[in-house]
């Protein structure tokens, strides 16, 4: 008897699996003329095929595993009324929609697409316009955010959110996205094991990429250009930052990269070009800086507060106003085999390494730290003279702060 009911059970189970995932078509003159109807009708595992058109809908709740597939980029217009799509089920895929006019609010972070407590989601080929928050991932894991275009028209921070926002979300891949004109392009808070590859984040009001309290993350091959304040990596551990470009972040509070309380990170192969400060480093320890290019920045590196056991090797410092500035008299960081375009030494034994050490900190940088207005004296003879005298006999700059083996030729 028991065996029989078991067989029946298994049979029913197989039948259940054999029911084919259906495809439901949504178009303006179909029987199903809205996404809300389509979602209500669909069973778990179905595909919603959304035809070209404009759908004025908001507060759509996806509460079962579904694929929402847009054909020829259909438009979902939220008409500024609130959140557009909220996903609360696992294995949801959203592909090829244009979502616009997300409602703005001070107290609720309305998003074009919000994923809540779900896993195995995938958002791709989505275009977001006139948004508040773009893609908001909340307490979700194992998802993919791929090839989306997010363009906000943020003018002030009041009425803008972040493009891609990860909050308490782990194991997420953020790849090939383009984000512009929002508050922070990509934002991570309490999110670990996140890979951020090949994205372009430009013209955002605040940061191109922003880490808060997030560990074991990696970002590679991204471009961060012309953001209000560059990229900020704060209060995080074991972050990999490899082969990225940080460009044209100009302004008094702007940096290519801002590091605050960062430990055990790797910063390799990046290019910092034309920023007010290439990397602003505060309270950060055990970081390896290797093979980066610092080109035409105001300050290539600005080190503030206690920073211990950092190593700088094989970097190129090319035509920066200041290669390095310190605000303390002690140094626990090492500089080895970097190329400094300001180096004026010689190489008699022709081994490619300068025979006299290079002192990257100019005395004048201390004066500018204390009295920023003195910067107008930067190109004066007087400053050249005090810098030279300090170079010959260091009094104010840390005595051991030097590159003992400066490269003669630029590392290729």
């Amino acid at each position: 008897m028991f065996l029989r009911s078991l067989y029946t059970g298994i049979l029913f189970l197989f039948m259940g699996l054999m029911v084919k995932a259906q495809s439901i078509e949504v178009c303006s003159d179909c029987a199903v003329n809205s996404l809300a109807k389509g979602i209500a009708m669909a069973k778990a595992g179905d595909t919603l095929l959304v035809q070209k058109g404009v759908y004025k809908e908001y507060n759509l709740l996806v509460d079962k595993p579904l694929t929402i597939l847009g054909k020829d980029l259909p438009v979902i217009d939220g008409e500024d009324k609130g959140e557009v799509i909220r996903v609360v089920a696992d294995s949801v895929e959203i592909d090829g929609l244009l979502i616009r006019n997300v409602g703005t609010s001070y107290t609720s972070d309305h998003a074009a697409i919000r994923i809540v407590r779900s896993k195995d989601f995938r958002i791709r080929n989505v275009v977001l316009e006139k948004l508040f928050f773009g893609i908001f991932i909340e307490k979700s894991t194992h998802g993919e955010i791929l090839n989306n275009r997010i363009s906000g028209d943020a003018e002030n921070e009041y009425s803008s959110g972040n493009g891609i926002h990860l909050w308490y979300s782990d194991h997420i891949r953020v790849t090939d996205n383009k984000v512009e004109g929002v508050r922070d392009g990509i934002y991570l808070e309490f999110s670990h094991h996140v890979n951020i590859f090949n994205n372009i984040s430009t013209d955002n009001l605040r940061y191109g990429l922003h880490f808060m309290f997030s560990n074991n993350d990696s970002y590679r091959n991204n471009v961060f250009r012309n953001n209000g304040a560059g990229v900020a990596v704060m209060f995080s551990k074991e972050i990999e930052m490899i082969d990225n470009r940080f460009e044209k972040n100009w302004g008094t509070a702007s940096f290519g990269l801002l590091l605050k309380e960062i430990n055990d990170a790797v910063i390799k192969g990046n290019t910092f070009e034309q920023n007010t400060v290439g990397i602003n480093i505060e309270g950060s320890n055990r970081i390896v800086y290797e093979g980066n290019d610092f080109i035409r920045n105001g300050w290539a590196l600005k080190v503030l507060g206690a920073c211990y056991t950092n190593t700088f090797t094989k970097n190129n410092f090319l035509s920066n106003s200041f290669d390095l500035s310190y605000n303390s008299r002690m140094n626990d960081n090492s500089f080895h085999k970097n190329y400094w375009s300001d180096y004026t030494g010689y190489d008699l034994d022709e081994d490619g390494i300068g025979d006299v050490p290079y002192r990257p900190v100019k005395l004048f940088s201390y004066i500018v730290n204390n009295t920023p207005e003195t910067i107008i004296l930067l190109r004066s003879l007087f400053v050249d003279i005090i810098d030279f005298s300090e170079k010959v006999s260091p009094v104010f700059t840390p005595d051991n702060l030097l590159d003992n083996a400066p490269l003669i030729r630029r590392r290729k």
Partner: protein
Amino acid sequence: MKNRVNVISILVLLITSACGTREAKPIAYGEAACHFCKMTIVDAIHGAEVITDKGRIYTFDALECMIHYMKDVETDQDFRLFTNYYESPGELLPVSEATFLISENLPSPMGANLTAFKDSAMARRIQTEQSGSLYSWKELWRRAAENENALIP
């Protein structure tokens, strides 16, 4: 002689007008950087401001940053502290007049989940909606002073 009086009165005028009135000055959101953590200030309901005894103004992106800063300076001078509050973004309120809610469902910029309210009834209402616990400024300050890791995630 008369000239000198004029000069002196002008000087006095200049000096007194240069002295700040020690009123809260609106935060330049999107431009000003947090004095403690260097982040650009963008959140208009979580920002904060300190006016020192000398009239110097420091702005913060979050209340918790102001509290960490105040712990560092250890001053007994007459500093005036202001906070943004939930009901009206961008406005500043003396901290002594505010009620504070720590709720995991209301994140603040630096991870302490700390939000100020002008109206304590409003604070209680949001507390019932979002859960969490309420503090006065004194209680909040005591909590921060007693525990090194309070307000740090």
